[in-house]
């Protein structure tokens, strides 16, 4: 058996585990990448996918609780309204390039977000464009995000709206996460690692996104977003796409 054939056999042996979700995240990502280049494994996967897809049906059928729908739709309606508001401003020309300096370094949030004050804001609710953090009469405030300059497309913007204990991250022209990954929102509370949240998302086809940040931001230093495997991670595995300082 050649080395190549042996390697292929190792991949092939892992097919069942991959289909069942039994590979660790890194191995699953490697296997997905292998599938893109191996027609034999791809065909085998397609054949066995029938069996894996049938497994959920073996669970005893239960109706979803009615209150769950109300809970989910409350978030969806809120985000839909914010998205609609952001969409009306999506064509606004970006601020002068000389005033925007996207940058970050490492997983830890960079102290002193003076640069953020020069970032152009995505305007929510049809309010005129402003620069830097903005406080509203209703007690809410918006904080612009700092995006990774090497990953964000020109014109990409994001901000965090903090209002009555709720925080919502909105963005425009955000890049799609890498294939097979989703964005995960994290809260930095000053610990060694940021705190994971259940907020996983991918921007829509036009790069817009609106995500409610679960939990309280009281005492938090900031919020960040990284791309992670489907289902999220418990600690970040990538450099952040964007960071927001809330302290």
């Amino acid at each position, binding site marked *: 058996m050649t080395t190549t054939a042996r390697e292929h056999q190792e991949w092939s042996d892992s097919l*069942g585990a991959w289909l069942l979700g*039994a590979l660790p995240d890194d191995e699953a990502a490697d296997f997905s990448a292998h599938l893109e280049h191996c027609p034999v494994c791809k065909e085998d996967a397609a054949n066995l996918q029938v069996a894996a897809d049938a497994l959920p*049906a073996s669970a005893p*059928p*239960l109706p979803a609780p009615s209150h769950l729908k109300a809970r989910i739709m409350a978030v969806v309606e809120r985000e839909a309204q914010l998205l609609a508001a952001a969409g009306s401003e999506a064509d606004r020309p970006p601020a002068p390039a000389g005033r925007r300096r996207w940058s970050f370094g490492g997983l830890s949030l960079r102290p002193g977000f003076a640069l953020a004050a020069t970032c152009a804001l995505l305007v929510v609710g049809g309010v005129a464009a402003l620069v830097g953090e903005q406080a509203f009469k209703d007690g809410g405030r918006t904080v612009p995000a700092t995006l990774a300059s090497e990953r964000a497309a020109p014109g990409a913007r994001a901000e965090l709206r903090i209002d009555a204990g709720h925080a919502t991250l909105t963005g425009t022209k955000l890049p799609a996460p890498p294939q097979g990954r989703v964005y995960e929102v994290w809260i930095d509370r000053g610990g060694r690692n940021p705190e994971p949240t259940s907020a996983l998302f991918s921007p829509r086809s036009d790069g817009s996104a609106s995500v409610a940040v679960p939990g309280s931001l009281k005492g938090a230093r900031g919020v960040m977003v990284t791309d992670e495997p489907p289902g999220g991670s418990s600690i970040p595995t990538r450099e952040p796409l964007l960071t927001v300082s809330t302290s």
Partner: protein
Amino acid sequence: MSDSAQDLRTLADEDLMGLLSRGEARAFELIYERHSGPAFSLAYRMVGARGSAEDVVQEAFLSIWRSGARYDRTRGSVRTWVLGIVHHRAIDALRRAVVHDRRRAGDEGIEERFEARERTEVEVARRDEAKHVRAAMDTLPSEQCQVIELAYFGGFTHTEIASMLETPVGTVKGRMRLGLEKLRNQLLAHVVPAS
């Protein structure tokens, strides 16, 4: 219900996903109504507690709402895509070991309580489908069925299963693949051809 909302009900899942990806909340609501039952059933089967299952379903559907554009109709049905996301979320919850601490004895028998509810046509179809798949799984050798159950519903990795069963990893992976092959053959052998 408005005429436009009624019109949406006539759309196929794939068409609703197009609207959902543009931020149409009503399209999302219909996708939720159509698939939340199987999603909750799968989540409950995996995490074993009602509250945790609700959390998993909520996270999964909000992820769907926020990433609707990622749905690719060439890779399968919306149902399969939705349940795949639920499965990922449940595995994540299990691996974070959050739900193990939240299992409650009070949840025992939840299936029976729910199954006593009204039996709609959809529910009857779901129950029939469940019986069909369970019957196919019953034909698997026990060691194959065991690793599939531990992996798919238990959220364990192949190395964790190998350790639990004191069996080589290669053997576990082999049983997974053989079990899926046999399950596929059983399912296809009993498909009733369309008349």
